[in-house]
């Protein structure tokens, strides 16, 4: 028997792509738990159905592309997309909405571009935006959080029924505008008064929302600890969002955009910062590039939330910056050993 002929290095680190993806899935647990705790089983239902359909679409696409199905399904990337989309959609979304979302994400945003690693846009966010524009009603019916209304939270059976369209009318009874919407629609009350009048506000932001965001923050810290990504993009996004909201807070007048804490713990801020902005495929590659990329997303999130038409700022901001990532890359090549910084800036080509 001859010896193996391979080029160096012969040793390999313990990290694998599947492992990275599994860590990401694991890190969503605190956030999903909070969402379930405050909004019922709707989110879990979303995630479950999104996962099933995403895997099915992935397998279908791989079969059509004549790729080894098992090998690629094992990288868990479809599941990550499904989880993120499922979390982002309103709890207990109709099955067809989720299916259109995952289909669009997997087939069009990912596989049409060549599969994992080749997609220019974050599939989950692209699908979310597509759904938001196409089905605004379904996409804006958020359930009321625990404690803000008299009824019971959505149980697992109800979540399943609503998801597949049985007795879906009942769901209208327990929907409520999100805190971001409320703040956006407000034009007469001081922030302080608004807080007291509206049922959905909690300690720092919306009831449930603040805890969901804290949950995703915890997950993000865990991923940072496991060195799945670097701190640059998420921290700079949170920092720029904080700076923007502090600049325009104006102490809480009726025209105020909301406090920094409110913005940090509202909507998809933390989910975006640690699970979307850090998507390596679609973000800038160098650390300096990621600082710029994250910071601009933070700025865009605030601009879109406060002065835009949609309150779902994270998805739009990320997509916009996905466009800009190659451009940022071009101008942020790190200084290589033995080179002067100016030699490498502003690329020659």
């Amino acid at each position, binding site marked *: 028997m001859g010896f193996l002929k391979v*080029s160096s290095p012969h040793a390999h680190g313990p990290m694998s792509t599947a492992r990275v993806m599994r860590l990401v899935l694991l890190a969503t647990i605190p956030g999903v738990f909070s969402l379930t705790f405050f909004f019922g089983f709707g989110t879990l239902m979303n995630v479950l159905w999104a996962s099933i359909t995403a895997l099915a679409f992935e397998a279908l696409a791989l079969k059509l592309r004549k790729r080894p199905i098992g090998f690629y399904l094992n990288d868990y990337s479809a599941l990550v997309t499904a989880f993120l989309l499922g979390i982002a959609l309103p709890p207990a979304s109709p099955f067809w909405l989720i299916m259109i979302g995952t289909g669009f994400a997997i087939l069009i945003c990912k596989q049409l571009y060549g599969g994992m690693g080749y997609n220019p846009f974050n599939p989950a966010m692209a699908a979310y935006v597509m759904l938001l524009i196409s089905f605004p009603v379904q996409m804006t019916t958020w359930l009321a959080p625990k404690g803000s209304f008299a009824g019971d939270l959505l149980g697992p059976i109800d979540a399943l029924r609503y998801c597949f369209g049985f007795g879906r009318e009942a769901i209208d009874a327990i929907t409520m505008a999100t805190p971001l919407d409320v703040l956006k629609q407000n034009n007469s009350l001081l922030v302080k008064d608004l807080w007291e009048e509206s049922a959905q506000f909690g300690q720092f932001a919306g009831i449930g929302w603040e805890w969901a965001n804290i949950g995703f923050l915890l997950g993000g810290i865990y991923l940072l600890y496991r060195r799945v990504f670097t701190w640059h993009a998420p921290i700079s996004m949170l920092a720029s969002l904080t700076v923007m909201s502090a600049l325009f807070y104006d102490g809480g007048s009726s025209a105020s955009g909301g406090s920094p804490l409110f913005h940090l713990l509202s909507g998809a801020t933390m989910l975006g910062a640690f699970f979307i902005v850090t998507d390596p495929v679609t973000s800038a590659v160098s650390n300096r590039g990621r600082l710029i990329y994250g910071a601009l997303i933070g700025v865009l999130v605030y601009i879109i939330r406060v002065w835009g038409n949609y309150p779902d700022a994270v998805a739009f901001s990320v997509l916009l910056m996905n466009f800009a990532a190659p451009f940022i890359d071009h101008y942020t090549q790190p200084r290589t050993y033995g080179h002067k910084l100016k030699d490498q800036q502003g690329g020659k080509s």
Partner: protein
Amino acid sequence: MRKIWDIHGGIHPAENKSQSLHKPIENAGIPKQLILPLAQHIGAPASPIVNVGDRVLKGQMIAEAKGFVSAPVHAPTSGIVSAIESRVIPHPSGMSASCIVIDTDGADEWIAHRGTDDYTTLSKLELVDLIRQAGIAGMGGAGFPSAVKLSTRDDKPIETLILNGTECEPYITADDILMRERAEEIIAGAKILRHIIKPNKETLIGVEDNKPEGIAALEKAAEGTGIEIVTFPTKYPSGGEKQLIQILTGKEVPTGGLPSDVGIVCQNIGTATAIYRAIQFGEPLISRITTVTGDACEQPQNYETLLGTPVQYLLDKSGFKKDACIRLIMGGPMMGYTLQDTAVPIVKTSNCVLAPTVAELPPPPPAQACIRCGMCAEACPVSLLPQQMYWFSRAQEHEKLEDHKLFDCIECGACSFACPSNIPLVQYYRASKAEIRQAQQDKMKAERSKERFEARTARLEQEEAEKEAKRAARMEAAKAKAAAAANAPDSSKADIIQAAIERSKAKKAESADPAQAAIARAQAKRDGNAEEESPQEKTERLQKLFASAEKRLTAAKEKLALAQEQQSDNADAFATAVSKTEEKLAAIQQELTEHRASLTPPPADATSADPAQAAIARALAKRAGTTADESKEDKTARLKNTVSTTEKRLAAAQEKLALAQEQNDANVAAFATGVEKTQAKLDTAKKELSDHLATLAPSDTAKQIASDDPVQAAIERAKAAREAQASMSDADKVKQNIESLENRIARTKEKLDAARAEGSDTADILADSLAKLEAKLAAAQQQLS
């Protein structure tokens, strides 16, 4: 505690160093055969100075350095040189290269050698030369000739001398055990290096903090010497020269530059030991410490190994289990390369032989898609963006790759190690580097051939212009002559002869009249101008022509046959082609035989007058008989043929003339001239034929003459004359010469008259040779008086 710097990136692979450190260094002994590659270093391979069968002694130089960046090779033990041939050498490609093979005799007999008692009395140049003669090349892995590294220039003062004891690659412990067991030698080598380099700031030995025993030993040995042992956290690849410099001094070696550009010289500690032994004891580099390790070895340990020892020999000593071993690595698991053949020798750079089991270093899993996670960029010690370079490499975007500093990649393998998708990144970069280098070479080649082409075009244009000028000048001259002829009052017979001479001169200029050519050649020889084409060359050329013509003929015949078979319309055309090719072939054959005949006499030893005369004689003979060895029958046939064709042409010309006269054509005059000329030619041809027929009768009977070849006869005559000359006094010689010249002049005059009377084309040749003969006669007469 002195300040140390951190390098970007880096990884922490499992160290796996302890298993080979349980035992002290063991002398591996003398294998039956040593294989010493001539290139064990970076630079030009050494050149053997022993022959097969020579007995060599231990330490004897067997191959000398070839050029500045090179290193000699020495016999590691005594024995007989059994071969100097190509053997498989340790190289990633598994290639073979020249090696000196020594069959050892076990006596281990040293050549006379002695060291320097006090190296401080020697100058830097002397010490560097000793190191060069000892064949020392960097023992850390790269194998750069140490003498070259130590030849620092005075205008680049060295601030810091660094000894590299980092040994950051997993598994390898050769430097570690060297520090533990031979710290004094390292320090002694460091002192010699310090004496050579004279760093104006400090001498440092850098060691990773995973070698506490080695560090302790070094510190003990270095006490009071001013040499500082600097430890720093273990991280791969801290041991790279550039990385170590950054860690110890915070300086970066500029891209494309050398450490000396930032005032630093760096040497491996193993090299320092070798330098110590070379200076102190006069021992050249003939052995090194090699780690043999991996789970497929029962007793992993370090060996003091003679250079040239086959890997198999070391593996056998270490209890190698071949079946358990999946890949055999020369070097460490990060930068080592796989071996296919265990017969390869240990060389100056072989710090480790790694024989891992499947479980230890499993085969690489299939690569997944790159998700641009950036873990590679985090690991890269030179701050590259490996993930971007990977895309560019796959797309063969060479410009982008160079923009992303591909050539600053040190191929440490940290990116591949870190890649979660198991992409063999380094392999991509190596391939791209090779592609870019190839493209650059191709580009250079293309540029060179473009330059050549342009130079050639310019030259051809110049030549063409010169030719054009000459042509124009000739045209002018011809016009002037024509004008003069037109102005001449009468058109007597003398003018016709003159015209004939003009014509023949014009012909001489263009046609390849063999007589003319021969005369020209002979004249050139006499003037001292060598002929461009030697007879041999001409023979070869003609033979080639002949061969190719034959080939063409066969091809043409085949085509014809095919065409005939298929009743093709082209059959006629093919037939013509065949006959034409046949004609050509005949012509070449004739030329060849002629040329061969002309080779028979040895013209080389003839006096200067002789070749010319012989040539003239040949030429004359040729003119008389047209071709030298044409048989009589052939000649008759040819002449008859000429007569008949000329008759035909005459008839045709007459017809044309008649037609033109009928139609009052403006060209009547031209046609009339044509008819006249053809008539003249016909007359000449007829006369030639009758002359020939007349000579045929007597020559047929005179067979005993060596040949009736006039050339041969002329040569015989010339030889006889020379022999006669040799036995005569000078005056007599001259007299005889004059006599013969007079005779020849008389003969030539007769011939010329005859030719003129006929208006023959050859008249001017005769006139020419007559003039020459007269000149010779005058010279000879002068000599006599």
